[in-house]
């Protein structure tokens, strides 16, 4: 695979993980306490 694409996909994967604490938080906010 093109090395640039490989790095780009890895970077995008990382960014998805970097926003996941936000998403998990949102899911817990919806949960009834």
């Amino acid at each position, binding site marked *: 695979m093109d*090395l*640039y694409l*490989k*790095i*780009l996909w*890895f*970077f995008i994967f*990382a*960014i998805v*993980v*970097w*926003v*996941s*604490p*936000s998403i*998990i*938080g*949102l899911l*817990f*906010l919806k*949960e009834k*306490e």
Partner: protein
Amino acid sequence: MTYLPAIIILGTLLAYIAIGLWAARRVKSANGFLIASGKLGILPITGTYVATFTSAVTVLGGPAGIFNAGISYIWLYITFAVGACFTAIVAARYRRAELTTPADFFKVRYGSPLMEKLNAAGTIIALVFSLIAQFTAMGIVWSLALGRSFQEGILLAAVAMVIIIVAGGLESVAWSDVFKAGIFFIAVTLAGIWTLVKFGGFRVMVTQALAVNPDFADLSTGMGGAVGIFFLFLTWSCGIGTHPQYLQRISASFDRRTGILQYVIGWPFIALIFVFLTIIGIGTIINVTELPAGFTRDYLGPLFIQQNAPVAIYGLYLAGLTAAALSTADSVIQLTVTYISHNLVRGALRPDISDRSLLLLSRVASLVLVIFIALLTLFQWKWIVYIAAYCWGILAILYFAPTVLGLYWRRANAQGALSSVIGGLIAFVIAQSLALFGKWPFAEVPPTGVGVIAGMLLMIVVSISTPPSNKEQLSVFFEK
């Protein structure tokens, strides 16, 4: 122009002190000092979370790490975010109890004052050593920016921190963190965008970095291959997930919703900070071919900005670095004092201490602690750096399994938690001693990782083989 960096750094310090003193007006009791009375709203709690999360070690280490390990270095930031996912999961239940320090969790959930004290003592030791790295970073920022002595930088930062912590404890730390997180975010964002524009975009940057270093695209070797990355997750995700500074911030939040919102609002900002630090790191590969004499790789990021960017961006970057260094250090100092005052003094040595005396004692303890750590940092003993490298792993052993399993697994009990902490620490010490004498056969397995795994297994096995916790302990976290 030569004075500009000094003016910017001193200005940042003064603004930091001013905000800290302003916030200190609210502090009227020991509880206010230790945990901001559990009343911090969304702005201060998110600000202090983001500021604490991004330390000077992250900022200096990021570009240096990309330079050394190529793009594979961002695995480290991935482990950080996974750790924060654990914190968000913990927060959803942890705020159900009113706790002053994370060690209190062991008393409430497991009914064990012994574990509370043991945990507090272990945490104090680990936190003190982790502070040395942060103090060192402050000295580096100062000597790098101004060409003045490392010692002077540490002393200045120590004085600024003493003023605000002594004045207002967590309240002052949290509000000044809002300012620091803001400065830091703006600084890294501007420097990152400027880097992208200078080189003509991400694609051009990656192509040029590959031309300088073809190994740049390797996704794992730089971080120790698959085994290395697995243990990176184990140490950092578990260490961050239940690090006492984040548990403390859950208890300091106004309510459960505020406690969870700090991650929802904070992480898009932290994600952008990681993106831009990565981009600056790629810039250093392209543009810094050799370091001037006397500079270590930790200087790469700031050096790259200094040599290439307009002076205003460089100045802001230095202010951001100062802010990052102060915000993690002052939070950890304040946290250490909460364990000393609440768990050791009020919890064991002097249970009848008055609120007024406890407040005074907390202030004196803050002062003494800052002086002690500044001295440790100034002497720069080799063994300190060595111990400091393991603090996160030790905190992971002390907190991860007992907290996460204690909140989500009814069957988790005191015997399991105690075996987990003691067994985990023993496994760590054995592995670490073998490593010290060159007898540790698994080069890619860090001794702390062994401790974390041993701790988790013991927690599960011992809990299953002994009677469950009583209803009273379970009802706090499970029946709502």
